[in-house]
């Protein structure tokens, strides 16, 4: 999952900016650290050769330089930040070969649901994408906040219930990558790692076709079972019954996932919000 080993253009651009920024800053940080140690050593009280200048407490020239050095660095980095933010805006599509793949991501407690509305399929904890294609993600959450992140493809993004965030990526090389949840979401949080299979554009339709033959069906009812708190060790796949399922989740037509079952305290309301609807 090395961030410096990018497998797509977004991650490559992210990590280039990361490395460039570090080097820009090292150019002043290293001499400064060196100067601190050197001054401290040379002006030690026991060094009789060092000249004691108790009145050297102000110098307009030095002041100008010490304000100018960090200011210039920040102007340079500010430019990097401004251009980078616009170029790498997660909402901007990343052109690729072939037709774009639309993927709708729902973070559940504690698993990831990937819906392919155009292919009418859905998977849990495995994301399969064709290499080189433009990937358009729409993301939401079934319950608490989370963050969707595939380190080697770059740019993470929050998922929030009742809201849709957008992310655009592209995977350039076939292979297996790891994705993870990057915002703490409760007891099962560490088990929210997911596999990313980048397959060749030729193999992708086959995978879609075989997945479409899944016995399990994802509809409102099976989704409601899926969103119960729990960990999914397997990698289930589904036929998607209604391509509008994601919209139903994102617009809260399907209510947010429940929290933990309350066994000892049955008398209290199960959830602060249910009575409101």
């Amino acid at each position, binding site marked *: *999952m*090395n*961030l410096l080993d990018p497998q797509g253009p977004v991650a490559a*651009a*992210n*990590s280039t900016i*990361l490395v460039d*920024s570090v080097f820009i*800053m090292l150019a002043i*940080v290293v001499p*400064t650290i060196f100067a*601190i140690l050197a001054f401290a050593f040379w*002006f*030690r*009280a026991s060094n009789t050769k*060092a000249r*004691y200048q*108790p009145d*050297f*407490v102000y*110098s307009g020239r*030095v002041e100008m330089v*010490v304000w100018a050095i*960090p200011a210039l660095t*920040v102007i340079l*980095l500010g430019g*990097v930040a*401004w251009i*980078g*933010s616009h170029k790498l805006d*997660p909402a901007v599509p990343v052109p690729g070969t072939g037709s774009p793949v639309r993927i709708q991501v729902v973070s559940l407690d504690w698993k990831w649901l990937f819906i392919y509305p155009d292919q009418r399929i859905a998977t849990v904890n495995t994301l399969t994408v064709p290499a080189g294609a433009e990937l358009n993600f729409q993301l939401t959450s079934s319950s*608490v906040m989370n*963050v969707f992140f595939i380190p080697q493809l*770059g*740019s*993470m993004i*929050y998922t*929030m*219930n*009742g809201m849709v*965030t957008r992310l655009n990526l592209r995977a350039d090389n076939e292979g297996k990558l*790891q994705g*993870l949840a*990057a*915002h*703490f979401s*409760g*007891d099962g*949080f560490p088990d929210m*790692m997911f596999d990313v299979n980048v397959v060749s554009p030729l193999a992708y339709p086959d995978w879609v076709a075989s997945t479409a033959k899944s016995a399990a069906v994802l509809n409102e009812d099976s989704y409601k079972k899926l969103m119960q708190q729990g960990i999914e060790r397997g990698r289930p796949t589904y036929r998607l019954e209604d391509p509008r399922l994601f919209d139903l989740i994102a617009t*809260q037509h399907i209510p*947010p996932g429940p*929290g*933990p079952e309350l066994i000892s305290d049955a008398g209290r*309301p199960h959830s*602060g*919000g249910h*009575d*409101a*609807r």
Partner: protein
Amino acid sequence: MLGKLDWSAIPFDQPIPLIAGAVVLVGILAVLIWVVVKGHLPYLWHEWITSVDHKRIGVMYILLASVMLLRGGSDAIMMRIQQAIAYQSQGYLPPEHYNQIFSAHGTIMIFFVAMPFVIGLMNLIVPLQLGVRDVAFPTLNSVGFWLTATGALLVNLSLVIGEFARTGWLAFPPLSELSYSPGVGVDYYAWSLQISGVGTLVAGINLVTTVLKLRTKGMNYLRMPMFCWTTLASNLLIVAAFPILTATLAMLLLDRYLGFHFFTNEAGGNVMMFMNLIWAWGHPEVYILVLPAFGIFSEVVSTFSGKALFGYRSMVLATMAICVIAFMVWLHHFFTMGAGPDVNAIFGIASMIIAVPTGVKIYNWLFTMYGGRIRFATPMLWAIGFMVTFIIGGLTGVLVAVPPADFMLHNSMFLVAHFHNVIIGGVLFGAFAGFEFWFPKAFGFRLDERWGKLAFWFTFTGFYVTFVPLYVAGMLGMTRRLQHYDVAEWRPWMIVAAVGMAVLSIGVICQIMQIVVSIRNREALRDRTGDPWDGRSLEWATSSPPPVFNFAFHPDVRGEDAYWDMKLSAQQQSLDHTAPEYYDIEMPKNSPTGFVCAFFATIMGFALIWHIWWMVILGGIGAFATFVVFAWRDHDEYVIPAAEVAAIDRVNIEERRNLVSMAGTI
């Protein structure tokens, strides 16, 4: 009758918190019994618990912070061990326990270690540096301290009665809402912070007023020591930012207690509002902590270089610039929430701009050392260690302020390493430097230098061995708050970090040894002059420890580095031998208000957490009644007669005269 409280609240099935709690309980009982049997109780009550003396309150703040540092440090050790062994296994801590530990670690380290430590140092030193006899509101000061202690007590109580929050130290909704966190953990979190937050706000108001309104003759703003400036900036931030925290937590509590929908998923609640509000407090909070540390380093570097601070006015400007810009950068905590590129870029650049005045400060310390005669006493070691470490933390900080870089580093172990880099390297090193520097002032004897230097080197090395691996793990994609993981490439770095934690722990043990050894050798380490470091500002102009009234006469300040100037002119003009005429001094009376108020606040907080409504009313009425009784008092001051002042001050003057006549060159 007891609300939600019953025997199931005691975690009989979890040995770790139970044993830890039992040990602490036995410790507290043993100390209490010792105090009562030895007859120290009246002394403790009259001289400490009810004291409104800013120096005593400052010491109690630092004591609270030190005890809580051990608690938060234990949490850190447990977390590092868990992550070192939880590769393809569950480790030794189940998620519900591990999640409480990292939440408690963050909450404790920020609110009950860093905050009380810096507030304690400001309380102890600022009135002395300003040349005044007390803070603006002495009794309120005591109330502030005891309310902070209440918060700390409640957090520790959660160890054995019920549970602590499992949501992380900022309790983000909707995870922290009743639906997803139905237990009392979040309530413990929120009520502790509400109560201690009032204490912090009170302390902030008190210190702002003290700096603005109580300064000795001639101490105009541009003659104040740098620590007073940073105190002013930090406390202005407290006064402006803590109400945001209080309001945010109040909204969360309304959601949890009365079914409101500020931050719920349902009924139009908005979690992004919580994110914005909590960080609108949270980012200034970072500067609330680090600004006083900058002040401490300014004093330390200038004193041990034997020079006035380089570019004093520039430093003042930088301090106040940080104070203002601190409020304009909060959004950089969630670049990845999907705001547009313009918003992200503007907040990214604003965050970088803060690095400019911070960089200026580093360079000014650097040039303070230039042409100095540097003595490497323990406080100076902490200062140099800080400069080196903080620059690296600043580099990684500016890095995550670049939105595209943050898109990969947000919430990662890299981020964890970054903020520990600035909080340990900045705030904690600063607190330790201040502790070493001003300990002789507070207690009248120096700390053992050998153990102090050992503590520095172990902590300094331990810091790098612990946190450099976390930077690497972050670059390998590791996210924070993982109770276990299956990624082989993260494992070695977690093991190295655990080793680093062991080195850090040795540093802490050295620090404790330093205090023990110094207390045992206190006669040999006694500081009779009041000025053990050849100091420059007014706190060194009085005896160590200072008399309750600090100064027999209000010092007359004629420039920066007031006490240095006095020493110089005393040398040049020979000594003024005419005996001064002493006056009666009025000082504020001790008051149990703070302690009693906090006692009722503890009852009320506990009752609120467990929904014991009759007890809430009891506690509320008690606290209010305490306040009314205090407000009704007729006599709030007592008089120290001139003869007594004279007797105390003559001893001081005699010691000082010896010092000045002995010192040929400095």
